[in-house]
């Protein structure tokens, strides 16, 4: 079943006529993802590389029943693209764009939470009406990967990223910039703040003949739409996921929050690696969110919190595959 993305996911690419958007839209289509079109304001009605182009996300939703947006819009306009997708009722928004100002992301998050609140209210009202009419409220629940997500089930939007590689459900949907061929179908869920480290983890697993249920890159920004806890909850609820790989890095407290969540709510084995054990204080290590400041957000702190939550913490990124093999199905 996987999480959030599957063969029923209908993707539109925002910024499809740009170099990156165009290249990756084709790559995703070649993998077998249902890419139903793209959005570039001012180019609606045309086709680009065989994709129908729309002026607005709302048009793409209306004409193609798109339920997922993949964003390659340049940084100054990316937050606007996120809000447009949310407003159009897109359930899963994946923002690849790197370099969005923090203030812009605060606006986008604010817009999304308000919109989602409205959707949740409408959903609750709809449920109440169905119950009053004597119909089963469950009729509204769809049997797709998205159906398991409470926000999306209520018609709200989930944002993954920004500054992320996207989401991959092997054999069903590649929605992002990751190399599709290194993946294979299987039982391991992966959640990571880093792109290439995710590929590294996938590569190690596939080499050992172990496949992945879904791999989610939550991105290297300080204010991500989806955090570790969201992914951990989804993997725990997904019957096809049997073990979880969690790849964190220095900066912030998302790993510690994840650890607390695992301790209370996750029964499946979790293997974790934290990048940046040797990173100096006060320096941003490439990712906007990867910084130790004021002695906070160190790898050591995070590893300790994860260990105390019963997570299998590895010191070397080369041990992800072997550790999963060791703890999975035990």
């Amino acid at each position, binding site marked *: 079943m996987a999480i959030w993305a599957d063969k029923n996911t209908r993707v539109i690419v925002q910024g499809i006529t740009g170099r990156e958007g165009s*290249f990756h839209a084709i*790559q995703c289509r070649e993998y077998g993802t249902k890419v139903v079109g793209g959005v570039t304001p001012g180019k609606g009605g045309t086709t680009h590389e065989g994709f129908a182009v729309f002026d607005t996300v709302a048009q793409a939703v209306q004409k193609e029943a798109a339920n997922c947006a993949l964003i390659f819009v340049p*940084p*100054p306009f990316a937050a606007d693209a996120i809000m447009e997708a949310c407003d159009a009722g897109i359930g899963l928004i994946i923002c690849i764009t790197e*370099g*969005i*100002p*923090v*203030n*812009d992301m*605060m*606006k986008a*998050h*604010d817009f999304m939470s308000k919109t989602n609140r409205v959707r949740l209210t409408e959903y609750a009202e709809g449920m109440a009406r169905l119950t009053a009419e004597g119909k089963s409220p469950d009729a509204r629940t769809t049997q797709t990967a998205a159906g398991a997500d409470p926000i999306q089930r209520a018609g709200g939007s989930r944002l993954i990223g920004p500054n992320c590689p996207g989401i991959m459900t092997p054999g069903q949907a590649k929605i992002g*910039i*990751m*190399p599709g*061929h*290194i993946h294979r179908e299987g039982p391991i869920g992966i959640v*990571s*703040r*880093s*792109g*290439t*480290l*995710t*590929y*590294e983890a996938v*590569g190690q697993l596939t080499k050992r003949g172990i496949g992945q249920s879904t791999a989610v890159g939550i991105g*290297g920004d*300080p*204010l991500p739409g989806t955090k570790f806890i969201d992914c951990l909850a989804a993997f725990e609820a997904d019957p096809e996921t049997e073990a979880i790989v969690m*790849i964190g*890095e*220095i900066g*912030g*407290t*998302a790993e510690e*929050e994840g650890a607390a969540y695992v301790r209370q709510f996750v029964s499946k084995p979790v293997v974790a*690696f934290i*990048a*940046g*054990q*040797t*990173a*100096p204080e006060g*320096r941003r*290590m*490439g*990712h*906007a*969110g*990867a910084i130790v400041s*004021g*002695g906070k957000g160190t*790898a050591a702190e995070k590893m300790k919190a994860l260990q105390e939550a019963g997570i299998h913490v590895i*010191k*070397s*990124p*080369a041990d992800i595959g072997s550790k999963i093999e060791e703890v999975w199905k035990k």
Partner: protein
Amino acid sequence: MKVHEYQAKEILRRYGVPTPRGIVAETPDAAREAAKELGGRVVVKAQIHAGGRGKGGGVKLAKDAEEAAALTKAMIGMTLVTHQTGPEGREVRKVLIEEALNIDKELYVGITLDRRLGMPVIMASKQGGMEIEEVAGRDPKAIHREPVDAILGIQPFQARSIAYALGLEGTAYKKAIDFLQKLMTAYVEMDAALLEINPLLVTKEGDVLALDCKMNFDDNALFRHKDVEAMRDVNEEDPLEVEASRFGLNYIKLDGNVGCMVNGAGLAMGTMDIIKLAGGEPANFLDVGGGASAQQVTNAFKIILSDKNVKAILINIFGGIMRCDRIAEGVVEAVKQVGLPVPVVVRLEGTNVELGKEILAKSGLALITADGMTDAAAKVVAAAGSATP
């Protein structure tokens, strides 16, 4: 991005945040004139991008214009060492001449992003002049934290609660509320990542001013602040890092002797970690990015080799969209141009890895190839060790 104290105060004044009157000087003569204009009794403050200047001898009181000139003469050109500069220190090129005020209280106010809450938080403490981390470590309750919605802005009750937490009353209380509201506006409108007023000065007359100011900016928002971008002082940055940024490379110099070239920030950090686990010390962080072309690899090579401590280099690439054969060609091309002054270990994985390995093998270059990260780390640490005299 960081700016100097005098530049940060210039920005604060635009928003009506009170600061002491001050003039920047680069020569003793200019300092003398500035001091005269400011009334004689002034403070001479070395302008470098690091805290702890006072303890390092970079902030001094002058009783008149002559002394201001003499202090400036001594300060310009000196290497100022503070706990934030590292042992090599920073050369002082400019001083800020500022009017001396009658200090009643020194407080602390700082604004930064709280990532967990997803909004800015104003931190306030009565213990001004000290580093906030130090205060937090010793007595976390001494810091008042007020999360503020960046879109709604600071609400009057929030400003009041901070002013109360700072123990202010009367004129100073009223002025602090106004100060905080303007400070918050400056933080949001200027896309600051950190805005720290330490100390926040309360004078005997009840005035509230920013005696010192540290302002860091969100690099991603600089496109809409060309004026701030123009304030960048490359003298304050590592020359190699400046050079690397010109090539669009993400490079941070470290103290070890194993150079690394990696694609992706997370994998680059992971590579540093595994070098350390293998008993070595990384010489740098370097992310060549997703589209590592031959030109980028060559540039990265040159940057890494400019660091004379480097005794061996590890190239660790996970080819995704960028194929390994292209990267291998880039490495071969780079080595042909730059040579092989130190041993180079190459670990390739991902798309077209076999082709990539074949290209390296056929090149006839004395590259050391590795399978997997553990093997690569062991080989490069051994190579760096054997190269150490």
